[in-house]
């Protein structure tokens, strides 16, 4: 599948993902696509979507998974490490600086209000990500049972994340197996 065999050095991957990390206000993925596919042309749109699909189903932060996949495709383990480091390096510094500012100014009512407003929107953003993902599940309605089971176990029974995954995974796999038959 790698007929053109493009090579990227770890340092190119580092700087590329540095830019992605820094530009990602309000979600990094759109910026990752813009940089990787449109500007740098490291991957074709199809390659990008296929890779992102795997990254989104795997556990862990999606964007970090993407950095691992892109980095290892072009420069093996060193590429993966370079991409992840590039992605996280500057944002960690910024977020810690913001944390220091927070220590100084969090007593001010305006700052408290600001953060309350932003966090309420943040919860909404996560919920709508979930709802957008839910749309695709309607293509095979029985799959909604797996989603519902996950939610019931997580919300109603308050089980830890690990247990939720362990209990629902066999059920989800069973329905998914039938879904592939259905398609």
């Amino acid at each position, binding site marked *: 599948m790698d007929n053109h065999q493009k090579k990227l050095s770890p340092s190119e991957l580092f700087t590329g993902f540095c830019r992605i*990390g*820094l530009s990602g*206000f*309000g*979600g990094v993925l759109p910026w990752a696509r813009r940089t990787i596919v449109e500007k740098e042309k490291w991957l074709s749109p199809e390659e990008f979507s296929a890779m992102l*699909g*795997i990254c989104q*189903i*795997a*556990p*862990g*932060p*999606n*964007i*970090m*998974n993407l950095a*691992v996949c892109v980095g*290892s495709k072009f420069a093996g*383990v060193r590429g993966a490490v370079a991409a992840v480091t590039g*992605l*996280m390096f500057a*944002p*960690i510094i910024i*977020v*810690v600086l913001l*944390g220091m500012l*927070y220590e100084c100014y969090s007593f001010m009512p305006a700052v408290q*209000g*600001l*953060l*309350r*407003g*932003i*966090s*309420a*929107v943040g*919860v*909404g953003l*996560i*919920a*709508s990500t*979930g*709802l*957008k*993902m*839910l749309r695709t*599940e309607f293509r095979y309605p029985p*799959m909604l049972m797996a*989603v*519902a089971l*996950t*939610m019931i176990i*997580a919300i109603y029974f308050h089980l830890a994340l690990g247990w939720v*995954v362990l209990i*629902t*995974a066999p059920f*989800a796999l069973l*329905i*998914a*197996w039938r879904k592939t038959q259905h398609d």
Partner: protein
Amino acid sequence: MISPLISLFLKLSAFSLVAFGGINALLPVLLKITVEQEHWIDVQTFSDFFAIAQAAPGPNGLIVALIGWKVSGLLGALVATLAICWPSSIMIFFLQRYLNNMQDLRAQRTIQFAAGSLAVGLVLSSSWELALQIDQSTAAYALTALAVALTLFTRWHPLYLIALGGLVGVLGFI
């Protein structure tokens, strides 16, 4: 008595592997560990850190770095971020090779569909639990609902929504 840093590292590492749906799915767990079990921060600080990580550039998962920083400074921020990265990074490294080389296409698609449904369920339950913890007033719930509606029915960039939320908050409505 193990040091907070080691305990944070071990717990976050363990959850990294089951966090289908990314950090978003992990947030209620993070809240439980840091607020209810270890008492490193209170709910208000957690909520504020969540807001800072949302508004800052970079992956939203950096709330983990803020919590690590609170626990033990810059080293804490690095250790917490590393903990959240390494297990899932190693897993995706091998998983993508495995899935790409898989001959049985049906099994491949089964894994993808199943993992997808787990991710949806976990992200939705996570946002539900977060709303209960973070939204402390009716106005906050309304703002959350408005953000959901605007994301689903308009093409507004998330940054505008964050700015809107911040503005409403500064004006003292939340």
